[in-house]
């Protein structure tokens, strides 16, 4: 069996699956249950001045009968005194010395406050610290969480303050509620962060009740924006991880999270540069037991490929992720419909006809059977038909031989630019 042990900036854990700082890591009872179930690490629900929560805190987005495509919460950080949490952290660490216990921290942007909480927390025996610069609701209104996380100087300064006092690795958790996450990731690195983690939740309003006209969830008739997570945010998170991973100025390990729901998702994040993954929504949906298949699936995947350690996949796909301008304009794929497999639902036809390039014809074969056929010369290789097709193997996207040698947009513009001063007057 492949070695699943991971190391994030010196924090080791038996496997790459950590519970993210969130309701599942609220208490020692929960974290210990998680470790018993097999989780490799846990980031404790954010420590700070104990807050007050409201009742009616979560909402989910269900899509076409699939529950929890997305998840929204307006819960804040821990509502328990620091000493209570630290005592439980100490006990947990004692029971599970090889598991990673990381404390998430959030205090006001003040050097003394950061020094105090870092020292107290480390005294409880944590393996590392995660600075919560991402929580988008409630705490942000008080100048903490994503309010600091959106300002690169504040990220740098606070990271610095934490680092001044810290002896364990400091991870900076970033908010996605920003145009370019690499800006704050870089600021964290400049502030001395040993690692960055992303993404925290995305500002969201889960829905509006169309009968009562109230926001979902509402608290006695009023709602406020929450933080969005779950499967729906995975592509957003994966992009942010990838953007940081391929940025040479962000030269620290990344802990990836945001919609990771299964072992495949975990592999995707790790291939794109995450040293481990953090998970919350999937555990909230199904319980801690999901970790069994996360581990089993990952290890089978590695074994099947003869990969000895999970660390060997970290970042392996990063070089394939680039700017649009570096993509080959002359690479061409076209759709091919396998009429033996096709069930003639005609969804590809109508999708192409109405919303793409009108290149799938509904025809009859010589014996009069309905068939669908792609006019390849008009197919732009958009993939839409194969996306809407409900049957595996009915539509293949086939790569055609290069008609012209590979040429990226950037290369093309350079080429055309080389004819400069020879503008066509028209």
């Amino acid at each position, binding site marked *: 069996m492949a070695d699943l042990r991971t190391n994030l900036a010196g924090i080791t854990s038996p496997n790459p699956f950590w519970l993210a700082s969130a309701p599942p890591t609220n208490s020692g009872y929960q974290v210990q249950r998680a470790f018993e179930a097999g989780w490799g690490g846990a980031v404790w629900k954010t420590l700070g001045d104990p807050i007050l929560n409201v009742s009616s805190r979560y909402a989910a987005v269900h899509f076409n009968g699939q529950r929890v495509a997305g998840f929204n919460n307006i819960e804040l950080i821990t509502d328990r005194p620091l000493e209570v949490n630290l005592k439980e952290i100490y006990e947990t660490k004692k029971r599970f010395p090889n598991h990673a216990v990381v404390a998430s921290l959030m205090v006001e942007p003040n050097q003394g406050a950061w020094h105090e909480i870092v020292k107290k927390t480390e005294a409880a025996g944590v393996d590392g610290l995660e600075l919560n610069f991402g929580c988008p609701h409630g705490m942000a209104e008080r100048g903490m969480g994503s309010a600091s996380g959106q300002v690169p100087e504040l990220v740098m300064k606070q990271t610095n303050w934490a680092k001044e006092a810290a002896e364990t690795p400091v991870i900076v958790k970033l908010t996605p509620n920003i145009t370019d996450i690499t800006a704050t990731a870089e600021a964290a690195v400049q502030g001395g962060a040993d690692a960055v983690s992303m993404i925290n939740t995305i500002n969201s309003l889960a829905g509006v009740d169309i009968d009562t006209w109230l926001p979902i969830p509402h608290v006695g008739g009023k709602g406020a924006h929450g933080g969005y997570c779950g499967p729906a945010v995975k592509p957003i998170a994966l992009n942010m991880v990838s953007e940081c991973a391929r940025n040479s100025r962000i030269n620290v390990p990344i802990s990836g999270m945001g919609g990771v729901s299964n072992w495949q998702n975990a592999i995707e994040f790790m291939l794109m540069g995450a040293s481990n993954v953090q998970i919350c929504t999937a555990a909230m949906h199904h319980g801690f037991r999901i970790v069994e298949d996360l581990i089993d699936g990952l290890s089978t995947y590695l074994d099947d490929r003869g990969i000895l350690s999970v660390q060997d996949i970290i970042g392996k796909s990063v070089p394939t992720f680039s700017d649009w301008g570096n993509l080959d304009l*002359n690479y061409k794929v076209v759709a091919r419909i396998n009429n033996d497999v096709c069930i003639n639902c005609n969804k590809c036809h109508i999708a192409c006809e109405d919303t793409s390039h009108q290149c799938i014809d509904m025809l009859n074969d010589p014996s009069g059977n309905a068939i669908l056929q792609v006019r390849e010369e008009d197919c732009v290789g958009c993939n839409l038909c194969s996306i809407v097709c409900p049957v595996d193997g009915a539509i293949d996207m086939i790569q055609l031989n290069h*008609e012209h040698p590979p*040429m990226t947009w950037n290369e*093309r513009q350079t080429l055309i630019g*080389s*004819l400069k001063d*020879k*503008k066509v007057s028209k």
Partner: protein
Amino acid sequence: MREHQHYLIEREKIDYFIDRGYRIHGITENLSGAFIEFRLKDNKTDEESTEILHIQTPDGRKYFSALLLKQIQTVS
């Protein structure tokens, strides 16, 4: 007419000049697509004739880019 047909016509026009020894001299791209300036030098008279083609289809614009690459590579 399908876009592919447009492309085939444009390609034919481009090939027409290339086959007659014209070289791509300049390219201007704007909201209307691309304008290629072809030039052909008469070796005897040293006179240059100029032709301009308006290329609208994306495949046409990829096509002349490939030809331009070839032209530059043959020179160097």
